[in-house]
């Protein structure tokens, strides 16, 4: 009876794990990188390395308030992000359908900084929650994959239930390849089980309204709101009578100070504009519960209109789940903990995909479906990291004043990913599929190890050996991954 259950769970784990795993590797890799999205955006704007962090001045805030107002008059839908420890710059951003992009200003005097246009680390966030195919189908797929992960975890626990405790730290690299991969897969799955269950559960619940739109209050679970950020909606909003027709905007600095007295000092992170009002919104990093509490002011005279805080316990639970999943409240050690856990999760799932191929290779190696499965596996396990690296390289190699360069960077990402898929297909459908893994690993290693020299050559470097900043952190992390890829490459070429 028990063995029959294990056998059935094995089948479920194998197939749900493989099909879901193809998506989940993308989701986990994207999510891990999105943990440092702000830092990656900073790395991708090397012009900012010349500007040390300075405190925000009232003059600067009022100045960019006027700039934002001018942009609104021209039909754009901007908002302002205030400096934080992670991003010490003032920014006026707008949503382009995938990322929040815009211009950068010095928080000391409000003068614009000529930083290159880039989607930055937000590409990975988009990839994580919607596979860059939002807001509906991509999100739906990741939702289903998250549920698939919960099923795969539950079935995996049932399969290995008898030996979970006794084999908890078992890893035998000297054993056969299949057993070594199986050990690694089980080891990472068990050690990071709490993290994976938590992420899958919170991720699925946060966006549950997408799966059950009949219970939501508006489009895709969000209340219908006139201030949508998509380009199409923006045009519609301009036709709304009374929208953006006010002559001027009251100074923002007094509103900020007043909002800080209500919500607490240094808690305001966003300034959003609505019809006739300005919202001083709590930063996501200000508290564990992601609540978006805000104080609204009249944009004409700066008078306080309303204080909006989490209304009830149900919304508070939603805020807790978001806080656990997005972890924007956390400091650097916690973010690294999430990053490492996410990367290990990605490796664990990649290991599962490889085990699936190992199991079916002896009998089905020549079939079309097997070769397709191997192609897709190579494309997500080695092709995706290669595309992420290409994104960073493209950012530094494209001219900084190139028109639409943010789009071009993203195109470079997808072109390299498509090329890796093509390469994987050529190798998988050819006589030596193992070469596909090996070649992509070696290309990744070469470009990852060369990222540090590229960084040093494409920005002004001061005090290279005396300070540790976000640039070096990104470079050295890439070098670390490059060394791992080099190690895998050496193992693959070994007889």
């Amino acid at each position, binding site marked *: 009876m028990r063995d029959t259950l294990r056998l059935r769970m094995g089948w479920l784990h194998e197939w749900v794990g493989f099909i879901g795993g193809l998506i989940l590797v993308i989701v986990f890799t994207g999510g891990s990188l999105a943990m440092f999205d702000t830092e990656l955006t900073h790395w991708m704007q090397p012009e900012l390395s010349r500007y040390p962090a300075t405190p925000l001045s009232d003059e600067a805030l009022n100045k960019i308030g006027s700039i934002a107002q001018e942009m609104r008059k021209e039909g754009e839908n901007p908002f302002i992000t205030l400096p934080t420890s992670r991003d010490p710059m003032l920014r006026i951003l707008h949503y382009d359908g995938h990322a929040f992009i815009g211009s950068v200003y010095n928080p000391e005097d409000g003068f614009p900084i000529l930083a290159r246009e880039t989607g930055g680390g937000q590409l990975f966030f988009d990839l994580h929650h919607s596979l860059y195919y939002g807001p509906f189908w991509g999100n739906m797929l990741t939702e289903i994959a998250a549920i698939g992960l919960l099923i795969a975890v539950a079935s995996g626990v049932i399969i290995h239930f*008898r*030996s979970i405790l006794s084999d*908890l*730290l078992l890893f*035998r*690299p000297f054993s056969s390849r299949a057993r070594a991969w199986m050990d690694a897969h089980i080891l990472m799955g068990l050690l990071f089980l709490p993290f994976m269950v938590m992420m899958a559960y919170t991720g699925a619940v946060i966006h549950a309204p997408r799966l059950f739109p009949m219970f939501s209050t508006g489009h895709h679970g969000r209340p219908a709101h006139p201030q949508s950020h998509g380009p199409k909606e923006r045009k519609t909003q301009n036709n709304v009578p009374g929208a953006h027709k006010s002559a001027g905007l009251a100074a923002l600095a007094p509103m900020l100070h007043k909002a800080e007295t209500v919500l607490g000092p240094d808690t305001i992170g966003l300034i959003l504009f609505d019809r006739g009002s300005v919202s001083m919104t709590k930063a996501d990093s200000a508290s564990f519960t992601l609540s978006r509490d805000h104080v609204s002011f009249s944009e004409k005279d700066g008078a306080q209109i309303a204080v909006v805080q989490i209304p009830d316990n149900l919304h508070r639970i939603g805020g*807790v789940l978001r806080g*656990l999943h997005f972890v924007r409240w956390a400091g650097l050690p916690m973010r690294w903990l999430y990053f490492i856990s996410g990367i290990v999760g990605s490796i664990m799932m990649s290991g599962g995909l490889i085990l699936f191929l190992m199991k079916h290779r002896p009998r089905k190696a020549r079939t079309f479906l097997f070769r397709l499965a191997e192609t897709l596996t190579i494309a997500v396990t080695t092709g995706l990291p290669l595309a992420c690296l290409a994104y960073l390289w493209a950012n530094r190699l494209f001219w900084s004043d190139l028109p639409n360069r943010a789009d071009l960077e993203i195109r470079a990402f997808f072109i390299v990913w498509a090329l890796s898929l093509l390469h994987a297909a050529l190798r998988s459908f050819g006589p030596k599929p193992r070469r596909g893994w090996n070649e992509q690993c070696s290309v990744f290693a070469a470009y990852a190890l060369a990222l540090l020299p590229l960084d040093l050559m494409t920005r002004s470097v001061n005090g290279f050996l005396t300070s540790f900043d976000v640039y070096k952190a990104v470079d050295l992390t890439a070098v670390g991954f490059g060394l791992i890829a080099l190690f895998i490459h050496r193992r693959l070429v070994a007889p």
Partner: protein
Amino acid sequence: MIITLITMAFWGIALFSHALLQPKFLRLQGFEAPHRLPLHLFRLVLPVLAAFLCCQLDFPEGVLVWFGSASIAGLLATALLTVLSVRNMKRLGHPDKVPRSS
């Protein structure tokens, strides 16, 4: 940060002790059967001490650090055990013959 590191060290020792209590690991490592009482004590007490330390942090952060440091300490303990077992295998000059599930 210090609490996280100490928690990780506690978890690492606890998990290492847990592994040394398993006959399969002893065979792989080529160790003699150790005194079981201190290993049992480490395995049971250190995670509780780690939890106590994590309680010094704010509520959600402490829970996340406790679980997260267990995961990473587990990886480090596994790395150490693997190095020891690979050495033992090389010394014996034969591959692993131990079945996965006993």
